């Protein structure tokens, strides 16, 4: 077991943070609130108070809640990152939090590609990863896609590598998806490369990342089947390194031709629950239903790590997933309450951890 002394402190802090997560009862009480203002008042009595107060200066109603949630998630994850940075090698925190960097870089590139105003792009960024707000603001200030990539390369930010490599292809096709695929694949490749060691932490992290790759690949396979993508092109959209499903098996899933047949092939794997969705979901080819099931699976697996080795990265993984789920749940409740959606449907959309 590596650096258990450091984990003692960091995990104690994270456990403390976990104890402040909202319980099921509080989510239930939010569902029963009559309107958005009542939800804001209730959230003001929770650890979200500070962010709610800050957000309320500029926003009201639903926007206030959503901005506060975004601020809270950014602050929380940056706090975890700084805890890891101070106490030990932050490589695990990087893997956990860099997905927000990928999201931010993609958003900036998309915005620059269509010459969206900087304020609009900035409003869509979540500075919860390694790239802080000042860095993101500088990136947004660049005049075009090329400028953003050049600045990333100048600052030696690793995500400039896939972007530089695929910039020519993007310029020829004028298709940003080319760079986005490269960026997504690079994120997972780097993550797997970072944790290829034999320590317990590496093993735990590898299992989590590989499961995420599986889930991502299954989602892509479902989309490919539904949109009848030729088998030859399928590999372009698959990420290597899954826990259970390798590339060969994924191609076989695509070859199945129908979602039902593909899901039958998952029998015996941890994803066989996908074959048990209602029959009409197969007929309608409604990917979101499968996706919801996959997300529930991933969240349960992620938060399940919290009960793993107390002196390992498992606690941080569990907390990140639990926090992310909580924020999602509050957002779902606020949005759906405002739209006057029935409480039963709201409960169906939530994932309890």
């Amino acid at each position, binding site marked *: 077991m590596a650096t258990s002394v450091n984990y003692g402190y960091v995990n104690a802090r994270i456990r403390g943070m976990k104890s402040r997560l909202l319980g099921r009862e509080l989510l239930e009480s939010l569902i029963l609130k009559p309107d958005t203002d009542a939800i804001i008042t209730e959230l003001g009595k929770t650890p979200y108070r500070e962010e709610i107060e800050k957000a309320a200066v500029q926003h009201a109603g639903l926007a206030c809640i*959503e901005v506060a949630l*975004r601020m809270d998630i950014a602050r929380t994850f940056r706090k975890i990152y700084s805890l890891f940075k101070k106490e030990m090698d932050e490589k695990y925190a990087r893997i956990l939090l860099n997905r927000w960097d*990928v*999201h931010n870089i*993609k*958003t900036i590139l*998309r*915005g620059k*590609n*269509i010459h*969206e105003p900087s304020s*609009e*792009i900035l*409003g*869509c*960024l*979540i500075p919860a990863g390694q790239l802080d707000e000042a860095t993101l603001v500088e990136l947004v200030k660049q005049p075009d896609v090329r400028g953003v990539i050049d600045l990333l390369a100048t600052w030696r930010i690793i995500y400039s590598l896939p972007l530089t490599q695929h910039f020519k292809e993007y310029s020829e096709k004028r*298709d*940003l*998806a080319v760079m*986005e*695929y490269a*960026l*997504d*694949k690079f994120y997972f490749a780097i993550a797997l490369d970072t944790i290829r060691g034999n320590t317990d932490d590496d093993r735990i992290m590898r299992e989590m990342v590989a499961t995420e790759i599986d889930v*991502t690949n299954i*989602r*892509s396979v*479902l*989309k490919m089947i*539904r*949109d009848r*993508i030729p088998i030859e092109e399928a590999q372009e*959209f698959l*990420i290597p390194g899954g826990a259970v499903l390798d590339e060969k098996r994924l191609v076989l899933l695509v070859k199945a031709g129908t979602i039902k047949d593909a899901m039958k092939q998952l029998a015996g794997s941890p994803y066989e629950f996908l074959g048990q969705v209602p029959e009409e979901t197969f007929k309608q080819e*409604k*990917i*979101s239903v*499968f*996706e919801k099931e996959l997300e529930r699976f991933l969240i349960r697996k992620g938060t399940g790590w919290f009960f793993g080795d107390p002196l390992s990265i498992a606690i941080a993984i569990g907390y990140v997933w639990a926090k992310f789920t909580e924020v*999602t749940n509050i*957002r*779902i409740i*606020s*949005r*759906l309450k405002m*739209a006057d*959606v029935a409480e039963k449907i709201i409960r169906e*959309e939530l994932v309890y951890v």
Partner: protein
Amino acid sequence: MEQANPTRMELIRKSAQIKLAEQGRDLLREKMDALIQEFFRIMQNVSRSRDELDAMADVAQQSLLIALATDDPVTVKSASFATKRGLSLDITGKNIMGVPVPVIEKKRISKSVFERGYSIISVSGRIDEAAEKFEGELDLVIGLAETETALKRIGGEIQMTRRRVNALEQVLIPQLKSQAKYIKNTIDEREREDLFRLKKVKKIIDRKKKAPGDVAAAPPVTPSSIVSG
């Protein structure tokens, strides 16, 4: 009322005008009937398309709501940045009973997830579904734009034709008929006067013939003497 010369030529001219106006009115009525038929045919399509559009809009809003709630509005907005902004449409025209109506080329707006400009790896199926529903809605809106414009123009043409028919029926034809009647009455009156005058002359001549001795003493026949009897 326009002053008309009470002459036979004028009466013939007015009769011809009445005939032409009545022919025009009948033709316009036929056109109006045909336009009304076309109008109702298109209206059935429009109301069906409108119902479809309403249903699609509801579903699209529902999908968007779920995507915004679960994936965060900033993620949805970020994905929207990746899609193309413009939409080019080819519009030509056709004629329905002389009414120019637009024909919008049926171009499929709905795209596959691989054509939306973002990586499918990081964008959730909920966002894809919302995009798909709104693309479907856009397809319906374009189709509806064509039929609704046609409906509007045909409706306008029906109104205009009705006004023309009414103008012919209520104003021009009665006016022409009244002018023709006036001319006819005037001519008849004049004919009756002439006949009366001739009869009077004949009477005077006959009277003179009966009393040949008084011929020299009788006053000469003048128009005023005929009228006064």
